[in-house]
């Protein structure tokens, strides 16, 4: 492989990992803002998004440039395609963290509602999936990536459970419907973040093994 291409790929990896760390922080802070009713922290999450958006576009341009100028093949080609897709997922995760932060900010100024107990669990599992998928990316570890994909079902189950709890609370106290719907939206965003983490893990498997593992029963 040419030195130029190696250098470009190293740079792309470095930039992608930087986006990973920013987005991971966004998710962490958005969840904390929800539990701590911290509007300041929620604002911080929203402010970080501009940086993520800018970096996403830069990385995409660099990937396209590398594809056009070096026309890589084999591992290098898979790495670039995976980087493009992961980049996209990371930006989406950032957007969903912003959605959570917005709901958190709105909830913080309303009368406190009881946050269903499973929320903490869902938040932790989603963050764990994200962390693991990013670790799998850093370490190019397909086995770890497979673990992430397996966790997605648990998060889906928690989301359903939370939905049932929220429905029940709305029935009991319709006055609080607005707040409860905001919580429902938070759980939906958490579930989507977990989906994106699973996508990233699938892309890591593709990058390492060259196998597309999406849409498989197991």
């Amino acid at each position: 492989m040419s030195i130029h291409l190696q250098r470009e790929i190293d740079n792309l990896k470095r930039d992608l990992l930087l986006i990973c760390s920013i987005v991971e922080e966004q998710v962490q802070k958005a969840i904390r803002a929800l539990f701590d009713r911290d509007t300041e922290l929620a604002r911080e999450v929203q402010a970080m998004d501009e940086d993520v958006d800018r970096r996403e576009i830069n990385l995409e341009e660099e990937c396209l440039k590398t594809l056009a100028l070096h026309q890589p093949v084999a591992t290098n080609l898979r790495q670039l395609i995976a980087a493009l897709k992961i980049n996209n997922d990371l930006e989406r995760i950032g957007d969903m963290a912003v959605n959570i932060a917005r709901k958190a900010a709105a909830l913080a100024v309303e009368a406190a509602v009881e946050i269903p107990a499973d929320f903490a669990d869902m938040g932790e599992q989603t963050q764990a999936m994200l962390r693991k998928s990013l670790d799998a990316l850093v370490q190019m570890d397909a086995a770890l990536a497979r673990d992430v994909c397996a966790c997605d079902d648990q998060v889906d189950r928690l989301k359903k459970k939370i939905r049932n709890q929220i429905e029940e609370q709305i029935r009991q106290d319709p006055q609080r419907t607005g707040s409860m719907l905001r919580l429902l939206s938070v759980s939906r965003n958490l579930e989507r973040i977990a989906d994106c983490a699973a996508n990233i893990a699938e892309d890591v498997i593709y990058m390492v093994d060259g196998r597309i593992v999406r849409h498989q029963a197991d």
Partner: protein
Amino acid sequence: MATAVPTPVQSSIQTRDLNLWYGSFQALKDISLDIKPGLVTALIGPSGCGKTTLLRCLNRINERYGNVTTTGRITVLGKNIYDADVSLSELRKSVGMVFQRPNPLPISIRENVLFGVRVHVRQGRYGRAEQDAMVETALRDVQLWDEVKDRLKGKATLLSLEQQQKLCIARLLPLKPRVILMDEPCSALDAEGIERIEALIHGLRSRYTLLVVTHNMAQARRASDECIFMLLGRTIEHDKTVNVFLNPKEKETEMYVTGRYG
């Protein structure tokens, strides 16, 4: 991100309405270009499109062939090279050229490096120590020093083709050129030689204006900062290399870079 392209201050080579005829055949048509210093600019296009002719105008080497008529203006480093007071010898000192086939002189490696200095500079101006330093610096700049330092008196023609081509580049450097023209500098080399010469070109780019004619599109993509696409004696597109290959403005460029033309 990718290696930062230095911001060029001004153009180092400028052509305006340049036309050239070989007899009655017009090889260059209304070429107006601004080539920036500190970058590698690749000249691409199908055979016979005028790339080499354009390159050869820039140090007036075309005049060696009879029957050549040139109109228009070429400015190199702010000076019109067709002005009456321009000395060809001075011009070729500041505008060096590397050819398709390495052309070392059948003398020693050391004498090859010093050849330009001997031609252009009054004899006795540089002492032995200065000459040694010149030879070492030039050969180090082209990454040849370690390979040949113990046989500087050996014949240059015995070097491998890649080494010969590096030597031909090294030969220009003691004259402190500002512009280096390269006409298919890698076409005689194998894949590894090509990679090393490309790395060398990349390493030299910040100090010189490099204009490289190439048939090899992969090379233009890899090794140049800007690209000029020529067709039938005209320049069709001149832009950053990434734009030429990712998002060309002209249909002809698109057809050429996608391999449907030429």
